[in-house]
Structure formats: structure tokens, C-alpha cells
């Protein structure tokens, strides 16, 4: 449900839920702005915080755990009400989090988990991403030969995603309705490696592949290129990230789904939670909070796990209206009348 809420709706919800005291200070310690997405997060948090009449302050650790520790000391001395932390190193950050608690300030682990029971953990449901990819593919192709293009073998996310897929597909695989014909890790999540792996998969199965589950959109681009060369583009292909090129492929029909973690959603949710904490609402009383203990040390934390948004042909308008992609980009090369959002 939340996945379709826009920024405005979220703001309205947060405003109505809590009697807002203005003049609070919300601080964020960012780990880096090297990746484009954090700018989106920051814009969402900043505007939500300021729209409610509060003050937004922030620091950028520039990809250094040391600088982040110093950043947080600096933030503490400015006495904000809540500090959101995007940890660069989820272990090295713990003393800083302790310092925040000691100063009587509330902390939020934003998107990157650190295991401190006093903090609120807000992120997307990562295991769910794999599940959603599998669900969407299974919807359009309930049985047949499935190929799995997994990410880098050194990245735990590659395994989490695959676990999520397997949860959904287990029954189909057990009953023989679904056959796992290829399953490969892809060095460095690289699209060109994914393309080669897909080509070899098609060669070894003599093109008898009915659906492909790729663990991200970059690799999906390689998969689709390999399928196109065999005239097979159009079979169900799943990915994640909400890559602009992938959304365009969804509109064109060469990719079935791209699971999108809307950074704006995450930012707005976090801002609302931060404001609530600043107002003294107890952590476990905030809307959507549950218990999470899936970290590597199993520490139980209060957490908000947002469901990511599967973008399919039928809801491309969600990404467009959220400003994630322009209509021109999403609909480039799409024939009139094939996709509702493009007409």
C-alpha cells in the first residue's frame, strides 16, 4: 500500500498522525554522495523535515569511516533531536552510535544496518526484492524452464536475492512445473558477463528457456541483448534497481519487471519517523515499526521495512509521477497504444 503513496500523501499522513512541535533539529550523517541515489534520499528528507517547520543539518563522510566518526561528534555538539546515520562501516560506527545515545539523542539507522538496539532501523525489505521478482515472473509464466543470472559471488546480497526467489519458486521447482536450467554467478554484477553467461545458457539448452530471473537491471540488459540476438526478446525477464534503461525495457516489453526501491519513499518515511521521535513518540509506537533481528549478530531492533515497488507495464506511471524518470525516457521507442502510461 505504502508503495503507491506519493511524497505528498506521506507528508499528509505524517502530519495528521502526530501533533507536531515545530523547531526541532534533524541531523543526517551521510556516508557518501558518490552514488547518485543518496542525493534523492537527501532531497526527500530535507524537504519533509523543512516542510514540517524543522531544521535539517547534515554531513558527508566522503566514504571514510574515520571522517564519519568525527562528523557525528560534530553533529552531537550541535544538539539535534534525532540523528539519522547512513553508516559507511556498520561495525566501526557503533561507538559513535553509543555516543549519540549517551548524549540523549535518538538515532536512526538509515538504509544501512548497524546493530544497536537503541536505534531505529529503516530500510527496504531486501530479502523481499528477490521474492517480488520471482512472484512477478511466476505470474506471467507459471511453468517452464527458468534461468537464474545471479550477481557477484562475493556479495551476500546475491545470495539473499536468490533465497527470496527460491522461497517463492520452491513449490513449482519441487513439483517439476518449473525447471532450473541455468544458474550462474556473474563476476562484478557486470552486464557484459551476464550477456556471455546468458549466451552460453541459451547454447547449452538450445534456446529452451522460458523465463530469466536476473538479480539486477544492469545484468538484465545483458540478458535481453543475448535474447534479442536469438530472436527471443519478449520472454519474461525480471530485474531490480529501477534503472532508467530497465524501465524503458519494461515499457518496450523486453523486460517484465524491475523492482524499484524508491529512495523518496524511504527518505520521507525516515523523516516522518525522525520527527515523531523528536516529538517524544516511543520507538515501537511509530507507524509500521516491527522487530527485526536478521542482522549478522542477530541483535533485535525496532525497524521499518518498506516494501519495494515492482514496476511493470501496468504501473510505469508510478516511476514517472515520482520524478524518477521522465516520460520521454520511459517511453522511448514504445509503439502507441501498447502501454497506458505512455499514451
Amino acid at each position, binding site marked *: 500500500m505504502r508503495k503507491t503513496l506519493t511524497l505528498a500523501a506521506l507528508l499528509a499522513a505524517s502530519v495528521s498522525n502526530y501533533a507536531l512541535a515545530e523547531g526541532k533539529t534533524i541531523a543526517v550523517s551521510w556516508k557518501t554522495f558518490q552514488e547518485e541515489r543518496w542525493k534523492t534520499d537527501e532531497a526527500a528528507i530535507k524537504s519533509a523535515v523543512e516542510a514540517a517547520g524543522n531544521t535539517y543539518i547534515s554531513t558527508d563522510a566522503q566514504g571514510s569511516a574515520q571522517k564519519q566518526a568525527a562528523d557525528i561528534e560534530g553533529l552531537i555538539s550541535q544538539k539535534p533531536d534525532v540523528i539519522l546515520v547512513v553508516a559507511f562501516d556498520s561495525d566501526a560506527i557503533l561507538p559513535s552510535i553509543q555516543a549519540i545515545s549517551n548524549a540523549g539523542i535518538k538515532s536512526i539507522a538509515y538504509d544501512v544496518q548497524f546493530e544497536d538496539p537503541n536505534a531505529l532501523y529503516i530500510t527496504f525489505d531486501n530479502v523481499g526484492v528477490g521474492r517480488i521478482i520471482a512472484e512477478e515472473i511466476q505470474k506471467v509464466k507459471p511453468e517452464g524452464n527458468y534461468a537464474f543470472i545471479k550477481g557477484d*559471488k562475493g556479495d551476500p546480497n546475491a545470495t539473499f536475492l536468490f533465497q527470496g526467489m527460491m522461497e517463492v519458486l520452491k513449490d513449482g521447482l519441487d513439483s517439476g512445473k518449473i525447471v532450473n536450467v541455468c544458474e550462474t*554467478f556473474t563476476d562484478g*554484477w557486470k552486464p*557484459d558477463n551476464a*550477456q556471455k553467461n546468458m549466451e552460453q545458457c541459451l547454447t*547449452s539448452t538450445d534456446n529452451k528457456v522460458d523465463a530469466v530471473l536476473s538479480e539486477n537491471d544492469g545484468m538484465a540488459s545483458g540478458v535481453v541483448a543475448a535474447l*534479442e*540476438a536469438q530472436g527471443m526478446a519478449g520472454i519474461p525477464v525480471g530485474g531490480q534497481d529501477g534503472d*532508467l534503461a530497465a524501465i524503458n525495457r519494461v515499457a518496450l516489453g523486453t523486460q517484465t519487471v524491475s523492482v524499484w526501491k524508491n529512495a523518496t519513499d524511504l527518505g520521507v518515511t525516515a523523516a516522518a519517523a525522525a520527527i515523531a521521535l523528536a516529538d517524544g513518540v516511543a520507538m515501537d509506537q511509530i507507524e509500521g515499526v516491527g522487530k527485526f533481528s536478521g542482522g549478522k549478530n542477530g541483535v533485535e531492533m525496532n525497524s521499518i521495512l518498506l516494501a519495494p515497488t515492482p514496476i511493470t507495464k501496468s504501473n510505469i506511471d508510478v516511476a514517472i509521477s515520482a520524478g524518477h524518470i521522465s516520460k520521454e525516457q520511459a517511453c522511448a*521507442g514504445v509503439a502507441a497504444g501498447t502501454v497506458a502510461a505512455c499514451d
Partner: protein
Amino acid sequence: MSKQGVSNAAPESRDSLLKRFIAATEIDTRMLGMVAALFAVWCAFDIYSGILRPNTGLFGGAFLTPRNLWTLLVQTSSIAVMSTGMVLIIVMRHIDLSIGSMLSLVAVAGAVLQVFILGPSIGVGHPVIWIAAILACLALGTFIGALNGFLTAYAQIPAFIVTLGGLIAYSGVAFLLAKGVTVAPMDKTFKIIGGGVPASWLGPFWSWALAIVVCVLIFLGIVGGRRQRQRFGFKLRPVWGEATLIAIGSAAVLGATAVLTSYPWPFGLIKQYAEENNIPIPAGVENPDGDAICMVGEKVVRCTEGLIYYTGFAVPVLIALGVGVVMTFIATRTRFGRYVYAIGGNPEAADLAGIDTKKMTVKVFALMGFLVGISAVIASARLDAATNALGQLNELFVIAAAVIGGTSLAGGIGTIYGAILGALMMQSIQSGMALLNLPAAFQNIVVGTVLVFAVYVDQFYRRRVK
């Protein structure tokens, strides 16, 4: 020493046939070894994949099929193109670690130009777009290469450091250029260079025409070389040796053509093509193993007779072969190439002989950059997208290809064809293991081991020849 004076006109009869053959044709025995190793690897993969899942290959597997060999060549082309330049760099006692990042940067720049800049401004599909994109890629690659060379030669920073810096910095530039997003799709005509669309397949007629032209050139080349040697009264190869060389060369060309032209268009593409061009699909009998497609009632199926097209040489493979020929020519027949090898053999001697070694360094790095530009076009056209992940770590495969191909890291020694064979060897191993669905970790282990083993065998060979 004692052998010097002996006339070689009549080989000693007790020499084995192979020895006489090698002496008569002056074939590089090292190359023979590599070709043999490559065939051994191919056969092994075919046999093993046949045991797992029987297919139509020579030994019942999926490796030695026209389809897989065709794909293998396309997959190799981007690395092969760059490896030819790396040979000259390493021969000159330098190294270029930046080519992977450079490829990302060039590919992303070319993609941004066609997708974000030219597409919206002059209309998607305008013929200027693909030409401009290719020229931009080649120019940018050459420029960055020349920059690497300039810093190495004139600022006297070791090439290892210059290009290590490039490896880190260029990928950053690539990231900023596209703000980290995947840039897609490529221009329709541009895509032809990638080999993924029917327009980039030569088809049987032109493939055979090309093959025959190449055979004629081989014949003329060998006859011309013989005339030249005759003119100066040098010792000649026996006529049967020359004839064998022509026969082997032609057989290799014609054999490769025969294999590639027997890979039919994929079923789905024939159907698309037939529908787009209003070609009636003939009726036939259902036979899922056939190559062509026909109708059974309302259903389009494969059959043994009927509508069928064959692929033949793909554009990226032709580009790689063309680059191989041109680079071999540059390395062996031009002053430029001679100087590269002389500098690698003894930089001081080259300097004292009046060769401008600094200018040569810039030129060689610029040539490397130009080749990276070509590879960037091939790689992004093939993927139909460009990202800053494209090309990353390619430098390792390219260097490995050159080294497996016999290029000595001490400088002075290396051949273009060796590097291309090396690239083919690396890709064969990777593709073969992907075909067997082996875990990626296992693939890495094998590729790494092969690299070290190949260098060991090479050194062993060199010591024995001495």
C-alpha cells in the same frame, strides 16, 4: 656454430617428417603448439558437455557446434582487438592497466552522445548519430591513450603508475558522465557493429566471397615473397613447403567459413524477418531438431526443409580479424613496428640509433587508445547499452591474452597472432565452463591457473629452443 656452414638444400633423411615439414614451411612451432592446445581444450569441452547434455557437436557435445563457435568468436572480438595493441605496449617494456576503465569511459561517452545528446536533438535513428558516435569513440580513445603516453614519455612517470591512476580515474569520469545510470538503447545502425542483429551477419554468399578473396591473397603473398627472395638470390623454401603453406592457410580460411556459414539464424529471428518482409512461411512437418522453420496448420515450427538463412561472419569478428591483419602488418612491415621491437630489445641502442623513443611511446599508447575505442564501440553495440561497469577488469584479460600468446613482460618479444590466439584461449575456457554451468569461482581458478601454466610452458619452450 657447426651447423652454420651446412647447406640446407636437402634435409637429412633421418629427420622426422614433422621436423622436415617445420623446416620447409618455417612455421612458428610455438603457434602450432598453441593451436593444438586450443583444439585440445575445445574437444575436451565438447566431450564433457556431451556427457552432461548430448548435443550436435563433433563429439556429441555443445561446444564444437557452429553456433557455439560462432558465439565464441563474437565474444572474443572485443578483447582480441585490445590485445593486439597490448602486445606492442608490452614489447616496448610498458604496460597499460587503464584500458578497462578507458573502455567504460569511451563507451559511456559514445552512448551519452547518441542517446542523450544527438538522439533528442536531431531525431533518433538519424544516420549522423552512429557515424558521429563511432568517430567520437575512436577520437576519445586515441586522445586518452596519447595522454597516457605523454605522461609516460615526457613527464617520465612509469607507465604502470600512469595507467594505474587511469584505471582509477577514468572509471570515475565514466560514472560522472552518465551519473551512474545505464545508458541505452543504442542507435539501430550502431548496433550492427555488436553482431547481435541479422544486419551484422555477412551471410553465406559474402562470407564465401570474402574467404575466396583471402585465399587468393594468401597465394599472392606467398608467391610474392618467393619472387622477392629470388630477386636477391636468397635461399628459397622448397616448393612443396610453399604449397603446403598455401594449402594450410586456405584450408583454415575455408574451414572457418564453412563452420560459420552453417550456423542458421535463430528460429525467432527468421520468423520475425519473414513476418516483417511478408515472406510466406512454407508448410512442412513438425521436427523440432531441424534448422528451418515451416508451418504445421496454424503453428510455426522448425523443420528440415523450408525457410532458412545462415549467418556467416559477424561484423565484430570481421573487425577483430581486420585489426589483427593490420596490426600484424604494422608490427612486421613498417618502420613504426620495427622501432617498437627495437626499443623493447634495447631502449638505449634505439635512442642512439636516432629513434625518437618518446614520440614512439606516445604513438604506441595512442594506438592502444584507438583500439580501445574500437572495442568500446563493439562492446557497447553488442550489449546495446553502456554502463560504467562495462569493460571493468578487461585490462587483466587483455594482458593475460597477450602473455598467454607469448608476449614477454621483459619486453622485445611478442606477436599479434599469438595475442589473438591467447584471447581466444581465455574466452574458450570461460565460455566452455559457462556452458557446463560450472560455478563462477571454479572458472576463476581455472583461468588463473591456465595463465600461470601458459607462461611456464612458454619459458620452458624458450629455454629449450636456446
